[in-house]
């Protein structure tokens, strides 16, 4: 190993150590707040703030981690908790790459969404009811047809 490489690796190790310290400190200090979507009314208010028309239908995750709203037959509004913030996005229906339905432990039904946008992780939305809202089923059929 050359001295230059040794020095490079040492600097990277120190940097990585600094990163670990800062992340640990942020956690210890208590910057761990998680945003949650309270109810449909909050989703409607966010849609209004995004200058969207009143959604046809809204579905909120049972734990408030994510919400979906059907704006029209070609547009989906997504609200997602990201740390202590809520991220809102408007997607064309064709951006819904895949939806897989599943049964979570206990009651209810869940849907795992995948969007074609690389900047948006897959997410799960779960409902207390046995059936998912009708518009999610419509989205699922549309995604399957692609």
């Amino acid at each position: 190993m050359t001295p230059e490489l040794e020095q490079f690796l040492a600097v990277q190790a120190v940097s990585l150590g600094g990163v670990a310290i800062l992340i640990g400190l942020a956690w210890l200090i208590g910057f761990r707040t998680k945003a949650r979507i309270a109810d449909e009314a909050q989703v409607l208010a966010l849609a209004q703030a995004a200058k969207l028309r009143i959604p046809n239908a809204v579905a909120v995750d049972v734990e408030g981690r994510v919400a979906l709203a059907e704006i029209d037959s070609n547009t989906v509004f997504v609200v997602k908790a990201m740390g202590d913030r809520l991220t809102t996005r408007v997607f064309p229906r064709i951006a819904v790459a895949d939806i897989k339905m599943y049964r979570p432990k206990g009651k209810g039904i869940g849907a795992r969404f995948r969007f074609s946008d690389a900047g948006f992780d897959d997410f799960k939305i779960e409902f207390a009811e046995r059936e998912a809202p009708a518009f999610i089923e419509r989205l699922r059929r549309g995604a399957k047809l692609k």
Partner: protein
Amino acid sequence: MLDDLTIPAAPDWVPADVITLAVPAFIVLVILEMIFVRLSKRGAYNVADSASSLMMGFGSTIAGILTGGLYLFSALWLYQYRVFDIGWTWWGLLLCFLAEDFSYYVFHRVSHERRIWWASHIVHHSSQHYNLSTALRQTWTGAIGFTFITKLPLFWLGFPPAMVFFFSGVSLVYQFWIHTETIGRMGPLEWVMNTPSHHRVHHATNPRYLDANYAGVLIIWDKIFNTFTPEVDADKPRYGIIANLGTFNPIRIAFHEWVGIARDLRYAKSPREWIGYIFGPPGWSPDGSRATSDSLKAQWRADATPAE
């Protein structure tokens, strides 16, 4: 070409690594800001957001080393054909500082106004927080767009490469501390310097603030080229990007816009569309259906103007 390269004598090309020297200060200042934010409730941190910002910063140092060779080679090659022998004089230092700061303004403006450069710079704007850890959220893909070309004229003019690298480092170190909500306005400094207030505007997605305040150290360039927008107390900055990310994954953060470009090009129907998707403003689309900064600002102005 490598055989033709004449390496200038030190100190013309031996770079002082200002950024590496500043890393301990960065760490201490982030810790102090976290404690201040916790005690004062001024500003905000989130552990997941800061973790992804810090990992982007760490990754950018690796990417910079892997790709920095091309920049260094270009600088040294052009310096062989320099027009002037400026050397390490006091006026050379002053001119170099101004020229480097102006070249940063040009680079930064282009990075916002053309998608191929925005694809790497978007990383820095992708946090919905604005704190010192956001300053470290840096791109891994800067070399893909050859963004360093805005600095190359400086070497050709005759500024010693080490001098340019030094002021580039100083500029980046200067820009670290202005990523904070804990400092308000700074009196007369606001007239000349880039400050936390000016840079909050730059990171904001409110239509009023879009595509403004590209300065590195001196805000004068924005004032000269009419891209300056002051912070307005009644319109608190909302940070992030127009289409905020739904991920903290550093790989996705680093490459998502490049993937978006590739997808658009896959479905492009003509050379015009290819050019538009690559060199058009972020949000450009053939039918104008996507939002650009200009369309959002126009909509905002229309909404603000009472109907006649």
